[in-house]
């Protein structure tokens, strides 16, 4: 919310200031409220189907909506579809919300949905990966203007989750539009709570309220989304009063902001789980040797006792409290608390260095061995410090660990060339079975499994449960199966879970925001206190 008088920055007499504040209050009362938010990620394109990166989607979701929505705890709720159900194992029917209009006044119909579901595969030169969300779709049938049937190639229970990522564009405006048409606002016509006003690439997007939105009218009639990837600058802009709220508060600043009575911080456990992948397919993984640098007789990571010893050697609560400065929750699960398929009965492995040493001796490594731990240094909260701490903790029980931290671009390059054997990754997902499919199922290009299973862990039992989960359109059954599969994978330490990150927002003291597990920042969810 910005008052029309922004004289705050100029030296003014007290009287003028008071006058200004009074005028501001009057204006605010008249509904002239503006909200200015500092976003942390670079937005590359306004086309909502060009690149499935969180910063792009954050911006896009102000203008566009999807059939299914998710609540702050990542549970599915109705979006542009009021209801959906599986008619049979291979068919989903979506009943669309009636009376919804695009920003240009044209009605929203099933045709637009069918068009939007087909569009990701037809965008030229898009590295976006939206096609992954419609991979299971065999065909779509428009039954009537407000009913759409989606046939899947195989029984697929996660379609409602996948379709959450497909934003519905207006067929009329998008069918002949190129990326520049979206960036200029011409094709940026959605059904969402905000309309395009102005865009300056790399700097800001300005939006005005869609007065005809079907949802609860947002409190702000104007929204400015500023793109501020540099952490200190984002905090400074909030402290100076130039912004009303920021996302991803730097961990070092949270204490100070909490002490400032003009501001407040809100936090929740994020869906991002930080984990360590272990090479479980090569007999001589790179970077692994005995303490004298000679090759080991076998790959130690293939031994569950070694994996467990490593897990016990890691002091998760110390990492969460000190290294992460409270911005983490020790993890035992493949997905964060509250996420579909989370098993609250699983408890994070307690810190037990002696137990770890015992297990290592049992497994035939009484003197330990040497490993190299690789990871990014610019991706996750305090990622390099986490790597260093894990390395020290492992070294304490005899596993001499060297850290190789690099920017995400260089690190991923090495992973893809299979030059790492022990590596840190962060993962967020709506559901345990979806996480399992990417992280734990044995890599299989045909089925699209295990694209991020760097250690090539393979467990037929886990995989079969996961397939049953993904194949069941009954949500309760699916969640039970997903939970079982995830639990099994974690008991077998398919990878070593470290922690779930905590995500935080900071804002003016008179604002409130329900923190979202999926880390999204939405202007329309900010409310005055």
């Amino acid at each position, binding site marked *: 919310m910005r008052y029309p008088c922004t004289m*705050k*920055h*100029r*030296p003014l007499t007290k009287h003028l200031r008071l006058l200004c504040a009074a005028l501001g209050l009057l204006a605010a009362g008249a509904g002239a409220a503006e909200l200015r938010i500092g976003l942390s990620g*670079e937005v*590359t*394109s306004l086309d909502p189907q*060009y*690149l*499935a*990166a969180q910063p792009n989607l954050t911006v896009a979701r102000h203008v566009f909506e999807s059939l299914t929505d998710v609540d702050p705890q990542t549970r599915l709720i109705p979006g542009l579809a009021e209801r959906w159900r599986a008619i049979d194992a291979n068919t989903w029917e979506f009943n669309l919300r009636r009376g919804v209009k695009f920003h240009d006044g044209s009605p929203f119909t099933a045709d637009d949905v069918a068009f939007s579901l087909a569009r990701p595969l037809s965008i*030229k*030169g*898009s*590295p*976006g*990966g*939206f*096609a*992954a*969300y419609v*991979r299971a779709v065999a065909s779509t049938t428009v039954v009537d203007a407000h009913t759409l049937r989606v046939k899947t190639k195989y029984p697929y229970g996660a379609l409602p989750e996948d379709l959450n*990522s497909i934003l519905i564009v207006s067929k009329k405006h998008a069918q002949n539009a190129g*990326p520049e048409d979206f960036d200029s606002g011409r094709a940026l016509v959605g059904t969402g709570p905000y309309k395009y006003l102005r865009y*300056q*690439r*790399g*700097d*800001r997007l300005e939006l005005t309220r869609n007065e005809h939105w079907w949802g609860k009218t947002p409190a702000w009639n104007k929204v400015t989304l*500023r793109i*501020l*990837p540099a952490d*200190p*600058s984002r905090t*400074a*802009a909030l*402290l*100076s*009063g*130039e912004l009303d709220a920021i996302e991803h508060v730097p961990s070092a600043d949270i204490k100070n902001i909490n002490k400032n009575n003009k501001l407040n911080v809100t936090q929740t456990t994020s869906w991002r789980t930080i984990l360590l992948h272990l090479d479980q397919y090569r007999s001589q993984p790179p970077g692994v040797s005995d303490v004298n640098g000679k090759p080991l007789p076998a790959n130690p990571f293939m031994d569950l006792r070694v994996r467990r010893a490593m897990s016990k050697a890691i002091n998760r609560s110390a990492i969460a409290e000190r290294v992460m400065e409270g911005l983490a929750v020790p993890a035992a699960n493949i997905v964060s608390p509250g996420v579909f398929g989370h098993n609250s009965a699983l408890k994070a492995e307690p810190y037990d260095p002696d137990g770890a040493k015992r297990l290592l001796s049992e497994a035939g490594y009484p003197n330990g061995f040497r490993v190299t731990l690789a990871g990014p240094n*610019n991706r996750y909260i305090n990622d390099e410090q986490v790597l260093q701490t894990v390395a020290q903790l492992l070294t304490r029980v005899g596993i001499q660990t060297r850290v190789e931290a690099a*920017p*995400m*671009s*260089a690190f*991923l*390059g*090495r992973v*893809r060339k299979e030059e790492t054997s022990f590596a840190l990754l962060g*993962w*967020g*997902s709506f559901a345990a079975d*979806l996480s399992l499919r*990417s992280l734990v199922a044995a*890599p299989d*290009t045909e*089925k*699209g*499994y295990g*694209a991020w299973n760097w250690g090539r862990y393979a467990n037929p039992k886990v995989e079969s449960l996961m397939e049953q989960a993904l194949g069941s359109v009954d949500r309760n059954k699916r969640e039970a199966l997903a939970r079982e599969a995830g639990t099994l994978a974690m008991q077998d330490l398919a990878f070593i879970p470290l922690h779930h990150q905590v995500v935080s927002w900071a804002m003016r003291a008179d604002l409130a925001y329900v923190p979202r597990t999926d880390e999204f920042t939405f202007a329309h969810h900010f409310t005055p206190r």
Partner: protein
Amino acid sequence: MLSYALRRLAWSAATLFVMSLLVFAGVYAIGNPVDLLINPQADQAEIARATALLGLDRPLWEQYWLFFRGVLGGNLGISFAASVPAITLILERMPATLELALTAMLIAITLGIPLGLLSGLRPRSWLARTIMVLSTLGFALPTFWVGLMLIMVFSVQLGWLPTTGRGATVDVFGIPLSIFTVDGLRHLLLPATTLALFKLALLIRLTRAGTQDAMLQDYVRYARAKGLSERAVVQSHVLPNILIPIVTVAGLELGSLIAFAIVTETVFAWPGMGKLLIDSINVLDRPVIVAYLLATVCLFILINLLVDLLYAVLDPRVRARDTQ
């Protein structure tokens, strides 16, 4: 003169060619941008599809050949991340960087040369000593830190100036410039000062050293013997003689200001080219990286040319040589 110009042109073209090869190979060696850009839920088929769509599955030489053919046709490639021609992205951001760099250079020159002269003429005065201490600070303090401190003091504590971003712009011949609006100048002041600090220190040192050296020369002694006032000595004998190295350095430094104002642009969220380069490197957006560096080399070549022309204006000997 013509053969000199042609030779120079050929050298520049060779530089551009070699540099594009190096950058191309370098980015290729780091990794696949699709891995960074693509949505994590994507499976192998989707990664392969996107890689093929961007032409990244072809052998490096073929990718380079396609790029080279494009350049000959005036197309520097299309950004992977933004799906917009790389050169468009760069040109879009160029006005912001140019006005930041030129303002910084203006600050550095208008303060640096007088202060340098002053401390060179009276090296033992307390004023000269103060200037020298301050210029040492200008060298020693990291830009990142200075930028943040300026933000903390002038924006957060005093609330006089905005913390980040670029102010309102007006179109001048179709180019959006912010130096002609009050809001724009307010936004410009802190980043330009931050950027100017190092160059200011450099110019002070350079001018001071040149002045001290010139003051010992015979022509100064003769000028004084002729009865010229100290002011006239400095104005018409010392200054013209020390300006040539200053212009050379200032020219080169202006090039580096424009091309590598990265840290300052990041701290102040200034939507310029430097920030674009950093963002592009982070996601290995090769077309933008290559186009950016090519544009930078061209800029350096252009600035060198301008500096040479300025020599001719400043130094009659150069002029005489050229007209022969």
